């Protein structure tokens, strides 16, 4: 069997995705633990003191909000041209996860901005374009779930998602094109990275951690969105859901302990991020489980 059938055929995807989610969760656990241990002992920053440690949540989340959009836009273009069912499902899954990640990036940014800038929110180009990114996700979700007939809704949503790709470079370059309160790019600046190595290494590790967590969330959401006819095979998803929930709760407990001596703003950020992810994973897996138990009631997911 060729590898691409694992992803492109819904029935194969279901068997393959549960395993993939479990591996990603293991990776997330290891990376997140190593990041938590290092940020507990890292020295303070020369201008921001301890509050800069929010960077280890805010920056990965902000990067992932763009990556989720890239995935959604590319899958949408594949769906628009070739009408591959799985492309639409993965695009929709990354939209649901993407809006959560974007909101988390905005919230952690606000919690970081208050003690450093002196305001929760400013309408500068970076913050506004990130806000537009969130609205693009929401318009994709609302178009895809309300328009009738269903094929038309999926196609229109795919077109919107692809056109919205233009916002991704705007978010990235907004700090160079306009005067903004948001500082310039630290990681991808023209003159090399602007972060000391001792602070950069945990940032790369935490990016891996959050990327893996996002992958777990996208896979679970895709399993929920699969056409119900393909859900009669082994219910791998609920098991993978339990792994993910136990892993997240473990991270929450260990993180709360390890960050106990950190700045309050850092602790609040960690709690907000972890609880949002726990709640999201829990809800998605409850929905998957209720679909499995009542397969007669799941006709509303069938294409009309």
């Amino acid at each position: 069997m060729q590898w691409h059938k694992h992803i492109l055929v819904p029935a194969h995807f279901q068997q393959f995705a549960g395993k993939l989610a479990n591996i990603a969760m293991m990776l997330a656990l290891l990376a997140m633990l190593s990041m938590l241990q290092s940020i507990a002992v890292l020295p303070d920053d020369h201008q921001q003191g301890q509050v800069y440690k929010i960077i280890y949540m805010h920056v990965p989340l902000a990067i992932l909000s763009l990556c989720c959009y890239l995935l959604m836009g590319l899958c949408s273009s594949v769906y628009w041209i070739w009408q591959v069912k799985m492309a639409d499902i993965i695009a929709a899954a990354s939209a649901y996860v993407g809006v959560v990640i974007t909101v988390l990036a905005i919230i952690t940014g606000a919690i970081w901005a208050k003690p450093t800038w002196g305001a929760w929110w400013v309408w500068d180009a970076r913050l506004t374009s990130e806000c537009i990114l969130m609205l693009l996700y929401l318009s994709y979700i609302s178009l895809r779930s309300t328009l009738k007939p269903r094929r038309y809704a999926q196609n229109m949503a795919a077109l919107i998602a692809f056109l919205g790709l233009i916002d991704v470079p705007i978010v990235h370059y907004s700090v160079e094109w306009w005067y903004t309160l948001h500082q310039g790019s630290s990681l991808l600046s023209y003159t090399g990275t602007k972060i000391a190595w001792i602070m950069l290494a945990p940032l790369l590790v935490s990016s891996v951690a959050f990327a893996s967590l996002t992958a777990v969330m996208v896979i679970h959401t895709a399993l929920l969105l699969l056409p119900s006819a393909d859900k009669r095979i082994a219910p791998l998803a609920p098991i993978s859901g339990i792994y993910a929930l136990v892993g997240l709760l473990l991270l929450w407990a260990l993180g709360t302990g390890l960050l106990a001596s950190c700045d309050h703003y850092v602790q609040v950020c960690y709690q907000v991020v972890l609880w949002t992810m726990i709640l999201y994973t829990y809800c998605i897996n409850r929905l998957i489980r209720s679909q499995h138990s009542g397969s007669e009631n799941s006709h509303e997911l069938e294409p009309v």
Partner: protein
Amino acid sequence: MSLSQYKRLQVLLASFGLMVLATVLLVYGLKQHASAFVTPSYLAEHPQSCLHSRCRLGAMVQPNSLRIQGSELTFKAVDHENNTTIDVVFTGVLPSMFKEGKLMLAEGHRQNGVFFATTILAKHDENYKPKSI
């Protein structure tokens, strides 16, 4: 690729091309207006700006220019590119990262060549390094 798929690709590329064009026009059109602040040299070149409408001034706090008289705080805001300065007057609470020699944003209006600020925000740069180095 079948004919219908080819047509769908054409629609996609054509609409994306229009989108890129619109965005380029938008970015150039908004060059000045989408910025979060104006600089002291912009205020010097445009004497009619910020007189009756509120605006945001972004500049460096000139070292050794900060004076506190009662509840009133005055300092010189300097454009670090060409050393144009403007006096800023402010009453209120400062963010903890506000320091001489650092960047700040002041929100307010201009009167008789002095900038009266109602809010001050601190701007920090993108460099991170441990305190001891």
